């Protein structure tokens, strides 16, 4: 349009007719040309659920296509046309199965139903898993198992597991108690004993650029179980996380390969915790029940009830059960008391991340983030992303909506931690929607632009769907 107008101008000259025609066009502005100072022709994404594109508790073809690395790769292609990106795509359809919205409860919380996954070919059940029986669903293999994909995101991959031999070997490890990840298994040829670290090593060799966003699934094991499951949080664990991160990053940064390392966001930005923040939840329940009952949790050092504080977080998955009448033995009689809303029927410890558990896991996250930052700055000498903090790692908190009730506004649309209505997080209270992925990809783009003298356009997140299926 602009060129047409300018050509008209120069050709016809300053006649009145041309003036009128020109003015009917909007005034011209030059659009910046996407550029990048490093080679992104082969980008490798390493990480867990977020990187893989898990959404609403499931991986589907659509959710993979809206994974943040894939969205990022599409934007990179604007600056470098020959850039490629391959993903281990599932067949079209419901993939591994996912959560679907049924309706909203009177409290405004979504009720979901699990859509079965046609890609599930076998189930392995561990009845004795911590926190209740655990089902591992094996999935159809990727079309190209002999070539590792550039999106090496593996849902549920724990940082502590990266050197487990046979993590993706069905024959040896797909047992009820085996150390096994079905999403890793489907990336590899059958009976491949490689560890994840070996896979990263192999995939990194031809790569020219990387992103690293790993560790969230590791700490989520503890969070999801209300602090009941997962490894003991101690110094040895902190060292393990740091060392394993370094092992992966050593491969990724080998030969000075450029990339972006993302730190973990604050765990209480995730709706799994944020929705259940002590007094906020109490107030919300009081409003919807139209009463003044307090919210009680088990004292972490005993079994008596205590009123919740803002430092403790009820898991969002528990919230629909609060206030339901459950039998409680009081003295010699059994009473039906509302769960969590009576001091004699407090929310059990496994449903709450209490202040003690929160501070322990936050300490792990904070030490891990510091370790990543030290590695990026000191060991790998990566360019600075945030000049105010002299940090060479990406702080993802900037992309996340902050608090329930408050929100971020993007192009006139509000994003908050509420699932569904908040647009950012999907129905599993943890992974992002396509729009959330776009905002995360934009945070990576912004980091790339700062670190690598690039000029990559961001994604209009509002133009993407709010559900991945």
């Amino acid at each position, binding site marked *: *349009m*602009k060129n047409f107008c300018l050509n008209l101008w120069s050709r016809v000259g300053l006649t*009145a007719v041309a*003036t*009128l025609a020109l*003015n*009917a*066009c*909007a*005034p*011209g*502005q030059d*659009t*910046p040309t*996407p550029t990048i100072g490093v080679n992104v022709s082969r980008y490798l994404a390493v990480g867990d659920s977020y990187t893989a594109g898990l959404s609403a508790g499931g991986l589907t073809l659509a959710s993979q296509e809206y994974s943040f690395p894939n969205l990022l790769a599409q934007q990179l292609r604007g600056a470098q046309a020959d850039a490629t990106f391959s993903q281990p795509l599932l067949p079209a359809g419901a993939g591994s199965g996912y959560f679907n919205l049924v*309706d*909203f409860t009177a409290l405004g919380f979504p009720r979901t139903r699990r859509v079965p996954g046609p890609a599930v070919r076998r189930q392995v059940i561990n009845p004795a898993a911590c926190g209740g029986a655990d089902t591992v669903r094996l999935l159809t293999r990727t079309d190209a198992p002999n070539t590792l994909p550039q999106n090496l995101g593996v849902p549920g991959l724990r940082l502590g597991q990266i050197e487990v031999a046979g993590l993706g070997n069905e024959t040896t490890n797909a047992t009820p108690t085996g150390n096994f990840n079905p999403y890793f298994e489907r990336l590899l040829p059958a009976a491949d004993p490689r560890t994840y670290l070996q896979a990263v090593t192999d995939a990194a060799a031809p790569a020219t650029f990387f992103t690293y966003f790993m560790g969230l699934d590791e700490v989520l094991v503890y969070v999801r179980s209300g602090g009941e499951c997962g490894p003991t949080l101690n110094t040895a664990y902190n060292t393990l996380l740091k060392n394993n991160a370094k092992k992966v990053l050593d491969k990724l940064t080998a030969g000075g390969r450029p990339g972006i390392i993302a730190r973990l966001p604050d765990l209480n930005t995730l709706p799994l915790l944020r929705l259940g923040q002590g007094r906020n939840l109490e107030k919300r329940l009081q409003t919807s029940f139209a009463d003044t009952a307090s919210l009680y949790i088990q004292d972490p050092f005993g079994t008596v009830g205590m009123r919740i504080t803002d430092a403790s977080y009820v898991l969002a998955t528990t919230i629909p059960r609060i206030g339901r009448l459950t039998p409680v033995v009081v003295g010699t009689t059994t009473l039906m008391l509302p769960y969590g809303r009576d001091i004699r029927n407090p929310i059990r410890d496994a449903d709450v991340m209490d202040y003690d558990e929160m501070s322990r896991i936050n300490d792990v996250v904070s030490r891990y983030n510091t370790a990543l930052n030290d590695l990026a700055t000191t060991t790998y000498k990566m360019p600075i992303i945030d000049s105010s903090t002299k940090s060479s790692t990406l702080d993802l908190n900037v992309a996340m909506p*902050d608090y329930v009730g*408050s*929100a*971020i*506004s*993007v*192009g*006139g*649309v*509000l994003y908050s931690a509420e699932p569904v*209505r908040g*647009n950012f997080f999907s129905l599993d209270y943890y992974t992002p929607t396509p729009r959330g992925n776009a905002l995360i990809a*934009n945070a990576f*783009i*912004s980091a790339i632009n700062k670190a690598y003298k690039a000029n990559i*356009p*961001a*994604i*209009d997140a*509002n*133009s993407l*769907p*709010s*559900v991945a299926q």
Partner: protein
Amino acid sequence: MRARLLFLLPFFSGLTAAASGFDTCPQGARVLGLGGASTAYIGSIAGLSVNPGLLSQWGDSLTRISLGGFGQIRRSSFIGQDTYKRTDQDLTVLPGGYFYATRAVSKRVSVGLAITSPYGYHTKWPENWEGRSVIQESQLNTYFAQPTVGFKLNDNFSAGVGFVYAYGKYSQRHALGQYDAANTSYQLSSSGSGYGVNVGLYGRSGDNLAFGISYRSGVQLKMNNGTISTSGVPARDAGLYPASANFKTQINLPSTLSVGLADRITKNLLLTFDFTLSGWSTLDSLKLDVAASGTAPAQRLNTARRYEDALAFRVGAEYQASPKLTLLGGLNYDESPIRDEYINPEFIDANRLGASAGLSYQLTPRFALEGAYSFSYGQQRLARANPLNATVSNVGGSYRTATSTASIGLAVAF
């Protein structure tokens, strides 16, 4: 003579920004050609709406009528701050018209009527543009009716006072981008009226120099009949966005203080200068008082505008090319009332530099045809959107605006 005008220079050079909010254009083909510098210009009775003090200058035995129409195309282009996507506004033509009549009722008193459409805009962005959840279309139309009385104080001075009745219509719509469906829409429309006064003074010192000064009060358009309607909202959120609701609002139109000079340089050449201060700061915010509807409670939706007072400087030239043909030209520099922090795609404005040209052709001694064209171009404006301020709905990016206005009309005296 020219040295006397030098006092204006500090004002002119001191201006840093340019365009005058949602002023449409000078209300008359001839004054449009003159760049709008008509506070001390008696060549057309269209000056009536700017300065009632001019009225007695047409206090001879003739009845004068001037009427015409104009069309304005105001278009902006936008480039997203982060997305680099360019969007051009859709082409819209804002129509308008004017009607003036004057007649003397005695040697000293004249009466006149001015019907004009001085403020308005029509912003239309493509349906699926980046800021569709902020605004897709917004329209304001105003009509002013101003009965005026003019008094001849003596041979050299005259004064006038007018009563302004204003009627305005406002509508806007935007998408509800939180929903995936492309056809979700939130629209509001309202209309209302308000009153104001307009006073002015005109004087001559010697044969060649005239001056004018006028003040028009601000007008508050009170709109009590507003309706909001939404469509495409999923049933689960019907309580958040009821299908319809009523609201009240008020739109404040600015006061204007104008000072003008007209200087006859030669027998055939007249120069005019105007200096106008528009009191846009009364437009502080757009407040919609929405009544309760269904389960949705009554609420006040407040959008900050924080306009600031704005200056405009205009200069015009009238040249008598032949006994029948008069040529007109003008330049104007308008300051924008919109601060950088409050640039919003609903109405894009910038400091503008404009030029205009026009002519008046006397078909018979009592009947003239007038036509004019004006073009103005705005500075680039950069809008920053802060995602962390969730109460402000905006998109970040850069805007450029160009405005074209054409007007034709008739002037009759009998």
